[in-house]
């Protein structure tokens, strides 16, 4: 024992701590980050180099073209003259002048220039109307105002008599009153009665009444036919109208598909599968070529409206499938719990099942909306002038003959902003509604 003790006392050991040293260069700061994130293994290092080359390749081609962009010119040939004078004939330079020259056309189509304030105002009204729906921080009572905005926007864009949208909006008041009166009798009677009375009101009473009132008290602005709508305005009009209309329709279809009622279930399946099995472009051609065949002889209504109806039905079928997934994901105990509380079908759906199912389906619903908004570009094939259709008419002028990339980049960027914002919003909503980990 003493032996070892003496050995320990004889052994050298340090009595003071070493001064703290900075870690090696490879373990700190940028180098450590580079090593861990870009060059952890040989294979990864090669991938990094390939990726860097790809980025350099793309930037070296697009960068100068973009940065040398010429914004102030009257025609493509003038753009080229400016480029030759300032940068030399071999330099690549974008001619963004086409956008500064024609942006009004890309945004409004052939809408009369004197009335540009109307779609502009309508756009901001749309944002204002959407805000209470999208963000919970805004007081709930603003939602009533939101419900009015579609009618105001319709009046602003299409113009004409103020009484037509007013009396159509009145249909909801009529419906609300009917539901309240009949609701005292029986829920189902109320539902059927309300749908019937409101349908009859819209079909036979609203417009003649509006015309009658208009002849007594003419208030209105210049009517503009929807054939003059175009550009991003048209995309937003079709997209928003279809989004607003297809959500309730899609939910009803999903409920029908999940229903126990044999006939209702089979009809919903047939409708959804037929709509989803055929490309939208075929439906759009159907709308433009065939829809008139199915309407009473002599009727002819607006092509834009027909497109909105078709796009709505199309995206409603997709939303129905998304919501069906959500309905299936709600645990069975929730349905049984609602039943055991004595709630009837509509109460249990409205209060228990749908809130949970819709929460689950949010990403799918928003993805459908994004797809719908992107698909509004397809209307170019049936002769409506969406932004892509306008690129053709811009190229058709002698000033801008032969310009491609600048227009495509601009249009792509606008769509990217809108769709990316929608995607981000859905992520925000998902996080907000996540209740498990609060």
């Amino acid at each position, binding site marked *: 024992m003493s032996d070892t003790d003496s050995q320990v006392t004889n052994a050298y050991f340090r009595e003071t701590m070493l001064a703290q040293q900075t870690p090696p260069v490879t373990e700190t700061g940028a180098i450590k980050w580079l090593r861990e994130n870009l060059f952890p293994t040989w294979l990864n290092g090669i*991938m990094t180099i390939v*990726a860097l080359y790809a980025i350099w390749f793309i930037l070296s081609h697009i960068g100068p073209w973009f940065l040398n962009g010429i914004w102030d010119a009257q025609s493509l040939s003038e753009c080229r003259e400016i480029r030759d004078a300032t940068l030399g004939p071999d330099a690549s330079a974008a001619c963004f002048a086409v956008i500064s020259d024609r942006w009004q056309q890309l945004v409004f189509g052939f809408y009369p220039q004197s009335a540009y304030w109307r779609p502009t105002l309508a756009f901001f009204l749309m944002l204002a109307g959407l805000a209470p729906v999208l963000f919970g921080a805004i007081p709930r009572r603003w939602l009533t105002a939101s419900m009015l905005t579609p009618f105001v926007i319709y009046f602003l864009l299409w113009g004409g008599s103020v009484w037509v949208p007013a009396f159509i909006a009145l249909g909801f008041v009529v419906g609300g009153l009917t539901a309240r009166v009949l609701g005292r009798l029986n829920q189902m009677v109320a539902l059927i009665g309300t749908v019937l009375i409101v349908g009859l009101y819209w079909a036979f009473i609203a417009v003649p009444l509006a015309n009658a009132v208009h002849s007594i008290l003419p208030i209105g602005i210049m009517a503009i036919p929807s054939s003059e709508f175009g550009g991003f305005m048209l995309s937003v009009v079709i997209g928003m109208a279809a989004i607003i209309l297809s959500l309730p329709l899609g939910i009803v279809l999903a409920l029908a598909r999940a229903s126990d009622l044999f006939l209702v279930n089979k009809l919903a399946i047939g409708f959804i599968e037929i709509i989803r099995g055929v490309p939208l472009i*075929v439906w759009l*051609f159907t709308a433009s*070529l065939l829809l008139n065949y199915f309407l009473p002889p002599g009727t002819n209504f607006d092509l834009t409206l027909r497109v909105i109806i078709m796009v709505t039905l199309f995206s409603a079928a997709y939303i129905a499938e998304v919501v069906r997934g959500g309905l299936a994901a709600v645990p069975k105990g929730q349905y049984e719990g609602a039943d055991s509380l004595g709630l009837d079908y509509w109460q249990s759906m409205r209060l228990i099942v749908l809130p949970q199912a819709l929460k689950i389906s949010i990403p799918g619903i928003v993805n459908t909306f994004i797809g719908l908004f992107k698909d509004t570009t397809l209307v170019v094939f049936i002769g409506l002038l969406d932004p892509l259709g306008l690129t053709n008419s811009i190229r058709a002028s002698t000033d801008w003959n032969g310009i491609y*990339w600048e227009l*495509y980049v601009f249009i792509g960027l606008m*769509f990217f902003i809108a769709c990316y914002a929608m995607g981000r919003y859905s992520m925000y909503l998902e996080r907000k509604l996540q209740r498990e980990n609060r």
Partner: protein
Amino acid sequence: MSSISDSPRGSGFHLSQLIYDTRYRSMTIQVVTFLLVVLAIWQLGSNLLANLANLGQEPDFGFLDSRAGYDIGSGFGTSIIGYTSASTHIDAAFVGILNTLLVAFLGIVLATIIGVIAGVLRLSKNWLVSRLMAVYVEAFRNVPLLLWIVLIYAVMTESTPQPRAFRVDEAGIADAYMVFDAIAITNRGVYLPGPIWGPNSGILIAVFIASVIGALVYRRYAKKLLFDTGRLLPMVWPAIVIAFLPVILLFFVLGRPVGLDYPVLGGFNFSGGMQISNPLVALWLALSLYTGAFITEIVRAGILSVSKGQSEASEALGMRANRTMSLIILPQAMRVIIPPLTSQYLNLTKNSSLAIAVGYPDVRATLGGITLNQTGRALECMLLLGLFYLALSLIISFVMNVFNNSMKLQER
């Protein structure tokens, strides 16, 4: 719901029971729905007949047998059907159908490859690579497909050299060169070497098919051996050898029956080889890149859905990384991946109808385009077109459902 509130049986039937009694109410709802639907269909149908009578047109499919009288650019469908302008409308429709199937098939294959690679790279620990893939996904998902199609088509027609740019001048210099001396990308299309089938090439193809089947049988045997006895045979290399070695040997034994026909510049254009038209290339690339972006996210979500414990457990068992991936993670991820993948395949097939933007002669362009305009038979053409797409969608769903069932977890 609650059977207590229903009036007891045998107390006579009141009309109010149709609404209040849950036993009869569902019947009432269904009968009302049925009547409404029949009424709507009857209304639409009578409108249709009235309108057609006004136009003096009866629904009639006889036009399909009449002479089409228009040309369809040479390509896959035209050469298989042997279509000329003297063929009938139904032949034109079949040409379109074949072209649609071609672009859908090519698109599905390429989109799957792009999607799987990008999906795995998206999860890479390499910061740069995963960000690059994120940019790819966002760029393609948030911009309309139609824009990508016309953009890529514009690249193919506006930014590629003309065939005469490949002409070599006296100094031995050309404005443009062929890739590997074999592939010419021009504004008139892409020219590739095409195969020449020699006298004995039939035997070669038969042997190749047989050896591929042999490789599959070997894989099956090896798998069975692994599951039954735990003995692990090497799977990849023997399968490749079985599939390719006999063909390569036979190729030389038979004296190279299959040769390659290289495109050669003559006059103002290339001749020989295989030409892929620019509309097809643009449509194919745009569809694949666009759908590939969606598949990327599906693959990523699928791999992330396999819990970390699975890969840790497999490492604890001593499995190597590639075996962990192929035996543990992928089979479980596939179950999450396949259903949304199916709907992406369906979307791609349906989106191939955007061929209209670049003038690719798909079924919408022949049957739903020129035939429709020439004959004025809008109703019949659109009906056939819709039925074709519906049938194609159902077939793809069916095939993918079979595949999905084979991948499903075998529960006891």
